[in-house]
């Protein structure tokens, strides 16, 4: 009844569009949950548009508290990488870091993306599978070394939601498997839970943070003090039109999942933090007809 009367009222407005605009809202994938495909270090719930390539240059400088290095800027570690958007639900990428001369690659797939309209779903659920390849010379060339000892794998589930234009949060349970670990006491399988978020400040800048709680991979020294830490990064995303700059401070120098989850050596409490940035430029490499 209410529906009928409201229709009648509209008809009196002589709104011609109502005569034909009867389509239900279509399913629409929620986009721009993050400005980039990485929150800072970890994968974000965002996907590249199909047919685009993201050229990413990452830098991590030295720790602020190392004397006579111009607050760490004398040292730099970097990763250069390419990421490709295949469909709205599939993305892959690879890169190489100077640290351990390590190659890494991943495939990211979203069975479900947050969407509105018909068949709406409140969150994105994505899966990431990746691997890393250490290409340093073998530590001990006199023994028989297996190629597989260079490899590590990681698997991740990303559960994320863009709550509003300003707020996005995600949780990322992760497992990292190292084929070889330096000490017998270290686990080959390291479990971690990542948390990441964004607070958009205006159209072009956003505050981001990225934290991984490592469940079983924190190593202790003889005095029972930790040797590695949970990686925490906080930063700002700045979008300039063609580029996205992700400036941040972090206790981690690693730029792939294996490195930052299992080998973060800085302690925030001791101010073992460093400046870093991710630079992203997106190219259109295929055009849809």
């Amino acid at each position, binding site marked *: 009844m209410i529906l009928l009367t409201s229709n009648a009222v509209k008809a009196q407005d002589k709104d*011609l*569009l109502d005569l*034909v*605009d009867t*389509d239900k809202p279509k399913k629409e994938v929620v*986009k721009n949950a993050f400005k980039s495909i990485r929150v800072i270090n970890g994968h974000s719930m965002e996907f590249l548009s199909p047919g685009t390539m993201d050229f990413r240059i990452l830098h991590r400088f030295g720790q602020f508290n190392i004397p006579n290095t111009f607050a760490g800027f004398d040292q730099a570690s970097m990763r250069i990488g390419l990421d490709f958007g295949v469909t709205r639900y599939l993305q892959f990428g690879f890169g190489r870091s100077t640290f351990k001369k390590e190659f890494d690659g991943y495939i990211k797939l979203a069975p479900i993306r947050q969407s509105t309209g018909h068949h709406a779903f409140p969150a994105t659920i994505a899966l990431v599978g990746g691997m890393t390849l250490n290409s340093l010379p073998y530590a001990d060339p006199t023994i028989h070394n297996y190629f597989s000892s260079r490899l590590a794998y990681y698997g991740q589930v990303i559960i994320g939601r863009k709550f509003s*234009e300003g707020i996005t949060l995600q949780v990322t349970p992760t497992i990292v498997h190292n084929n070889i670990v330096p000490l017998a006491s270290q686990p080959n399988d390291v479990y971690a839970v990542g948390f990441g978020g964004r607070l958009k400040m205006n159209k072009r800048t956003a505050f981001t943070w990225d934290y991984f709680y490592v469940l079983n991979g924190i190593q202790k020294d003889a005095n029972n003090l930790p040797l590695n830490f949970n990686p925490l990064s906080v930063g700002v995303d700045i979008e300039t*039109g063609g580029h996205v700059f992700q400036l941040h401070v972090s206790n981690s120098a690693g730029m792939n999942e294996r490195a930052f989850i299992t080998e973060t050596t800085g302690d925030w409490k001791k101010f073992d933090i460093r400046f870093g940035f991710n630079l992203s430029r997106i190219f*259109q490499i295929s055009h849809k007809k």
Partner: protein
Amino acid sequence: MKLSILLVAALSIVSVSNAQKFFTKTGKISFDATAPKSPENITGVNKTSICVIDTKTADIQFSVLMKGFEFERALMMEHFNENYVESDKFNKTTFKGTITNNESINYTKDGVYPAKVKGKLDMHGQSKDIETEGKITVKAGKIEVSASFIAQFDDFKVVIPQLVADKVAKFAKIVVDCTLDPLAK
């Protein structure tokens, strides 16, 4: 059998010639906001625009879903929706106006008629009176509408930052090109 075909044909002819309202859901509306020295073209096209004309009352209305604009580059589309027209907040642009010289257009006779249109353009939460001249072509029971006009971004509070001013102009040239079928109602 023959009779029924004839009947259907006759009925359809009747409905065409009697049609008072015409519509499309696949109208083409494009814009060009390329700055003079821009290295890339800032153009978008929407092929799912809705347009309705009432030939008796001279009303003409458009409705355009902002997320329906397609671009040469996916990133342009993202920026268009997120940073400029804010499609999540203002999902549709509408134009509601009248054909001011409606009496000089014979919708039942094939031909090309100049048309003057006046009305309100609602975009990005702002409303602005627009007046433009276009062309109405009547052909085989269909109506083709074509027109173009300039929209100043200032009028619609669409902000083009200095950073991209060398690529994106301060205004857009909007081109309308729609073919309308009779509305069977």
